[in-house]
């Protein structure tokens, strides 16, 4: 008789399917990219301003120039979302800016980065190519399970060690929680922050994420820290606190960012079917608040106050910067190869955009 019931594995899968897809509390807002760019911030925050048009020009031209060589078929507008308020390009487009190998770039990875070193650093392949062109690009080995204040200390050490030439710009590129760590560094170490010219956030957890508030509240943070999913370095275990929307919002409202630094934000979101399998459950959680999310963050939480908005990449939270799916899944090899190439082009476009922007005053 008992054999007629599904085994626990089948039963769990069935229950999960019913609970997740029949919907305990359905999403109110449908997926619709015909909306303007939006930011959620505190009262009095400096507003985000729009530079999407120029970033699109640079990325699209780079894509077109390399399309044949890389065998890419994707359209530019399929990779960079065009929301309904993005200005149309001018009739006569400016040409691609020149590379400026004088830029010194420090890349700060996101949460759990040291726990999964096999995956690689954000933009690892692309950075290697640009190093060969003369750029100084280095990674900051922050602690993947530590709080932003702890990682701010590590970033301060790395910034202090940089051998900068006279007027050589130092750019901090933050991916995901790396952005949060950088912002904490700028505020906590104002002397060292003066060495920084610009901060570029890619899928940055600027306001934190609602996922973490729920996770911390349920005390899964301790459970997860003990589980230690990979080979994480010693840490203060504060990663979830620093990604808590409540805490990060409070921090932003009470810690104005230094005005001498220029800020740039690139955000991400994707449709459910384009989210890699490992992030679909978290996408579904966030969908209840807003379907425009990347599986980890809402699109309106990713913009640094007072930053220039570069655009919205049609990719999930990992694919935009790190090859998680390429390492752990054999799903759709053509798509995975395309993602790797697009990531490389995206990184180069970001660097070109910075080179052009930083060569002109605000």
């Amino acid at each position, binding site marked *: 008789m008992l054999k007629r019931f599904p085994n626990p594995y089948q039963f*769990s899968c069935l*229950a999960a399917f019913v609970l997740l897809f029949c919907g*305990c509390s359905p999403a*109110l807002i449908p997926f619709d990219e015909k909306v303007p760019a*939006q930011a959620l*911030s505190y009262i009095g925050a400096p*507003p985000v*301003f729009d530079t999407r048009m120029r970033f699109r020009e640079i990325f699209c031209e780079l894509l077109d120039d390399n399309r044949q060589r890389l065998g890419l078929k994707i359209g530019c507008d399929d990779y960079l979302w065009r929301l309904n308020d993005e200005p149309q390009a001018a009739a006569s487009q400016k040409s691609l800016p020149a590379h400026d190998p004088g830029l010194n770039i420090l890349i700060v990875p996101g949460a759990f980065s040291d726990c999964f070193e096999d995956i690689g650093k954000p933009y690892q392949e692309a950075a290697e190519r640009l190093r060969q062109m003369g750029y100084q690009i280095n990674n900051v080995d922050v602690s993947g399970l530590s709080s932003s204040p702890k990682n701010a200390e590590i970033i301060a050490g790395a910034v202090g060690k940089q051998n900068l030439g006279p007027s050589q710009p130092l750019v901090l590129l933050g991916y995901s929680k790396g952005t949060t760590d950088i912002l904490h560094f700028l505020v906590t170490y104002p002397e060292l922050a003066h060495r920084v010219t610009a901060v570029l956030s890619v899928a940055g957890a600027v306001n934190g994420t609602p996922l973490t508030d729920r*996770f911390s509240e349920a005390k899964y943070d301790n459970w997860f820290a003990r589980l230690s999913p990979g080979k994480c370095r010693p840490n203060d275990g504060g990663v979830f606190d620093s990604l808590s929307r409540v805490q990060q919002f409070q921090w932003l409202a009470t810690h104005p960012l230094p005005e001498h630094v220029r800020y740039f934000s690139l955000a991400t979101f994707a449709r459910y079917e384009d989210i890699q399998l490992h992030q679909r459950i978290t996408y579904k959680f966030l969908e*209840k608040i807003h379907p425009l999310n990347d599986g980890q963050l809402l699109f309106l939480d990713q913009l640094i106050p007072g930053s220039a908005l570069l655009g919205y990449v049609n990719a999930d939270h990992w694919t935009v910067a790190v090859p998680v799916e390429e390492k752990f899944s054999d799903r759709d090899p053509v798509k995975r190869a395309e993602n790797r190439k697009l990531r490389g082009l995206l990184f180069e476009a970001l660097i070109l955009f910075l080179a052009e922007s930083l060569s002109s005053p605000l």
Partner: protein
Amino acid sequence: MSPFQKLLIVAIAGISLLGCSPLVRHEMTTEFPASVLYAVGTPPASDGRARFRDIFCRLLAADPDYQGKAGACENFLLRFNDEPLSGDIPQPPPSQSTRYRVMVVPGLFNECFADIALPFEDAIESLNDHRFKIDALVVSGRSSSDSNADYISATIDNLQLDQDERLVLIGHSKGAVDTLHYLVKYPQASRRVAAVVSVAGAINGSPLAAKGAGIYTGLARHFFFGQCDTGDDGAINSLRPAVRMSWLAANPLPKSARYFSLAACTRRDNINMLLKTGYDLLWTYSPRNDGLLLISDQIIPGGTLLGYANADHWSVVLPLENKNLLISQTVHAPQKFPRKVLLQAILVYVAETLESKQE
């Protein structure tokens, strides 16, 4: 079962349970900063909370109904932890010679239930200040904001203002949206408007309308129980977040008028019985809502934030508890919200701002 399958069961079960409950579980709290959602490129709101609190609290303390009630002011006006402390900046008292013509534009479906209550109707009756002449400008309860903009335009075009009279429009809920549409659609004629005040205004729309548009179109419109014309039947659609945010991004507000926002939110136990479902649905986003709108959606871009009324979406303006009707039983009102004081404080603040701008 393999260890992998066991781990998957634990993960799926845990995550499924999490998924069944809202991501946000905490009660409505003022212990972290107030927030605003804005379309990129729109001007930021400025913070007038400290001065508004100063005015509101002084008027409340002088009101016979609330005299001697300790903490009444803090109860009625929420203090989020980012609110600046009162600067005690001495302000010149508003001029006694400037007079204000005030038109109050009600919200969604209010026309259909106008015999029950209109915004601030009790406050208008009892406000004894010769500087302010206040009337209701009742727009179509079921029409789109664009259509109601035409109606507001026609009404204001026919309005005779004295030379020393300035025009202030107060919009409740969708009434605030209709008013903004009027200003954008009729930029020349609307130069007569000195100020627009949004009270619990649906500036960015409401996630409830995103879902409600379909339900209303498919079902509710056929069984509508209020007494009003269908108009163009576009009211709910006008409140969809995508529609509202797109409109705000594409339509800069005229600089000829000053803009002010007073938002509302309260704890669940203060929410009208009829609004509790809306409150619970919005809780997924944030418990900081008034039963129909999130606080982050109630602020006009480029305007001045006056504060946060500790009231639900209706109690902040509608005197439902005064009615000898069934709907009065739905109101949870341990203490009646001081709508007269609120209206007076809003008008004093607006007058003060307009007159200091003149100088």
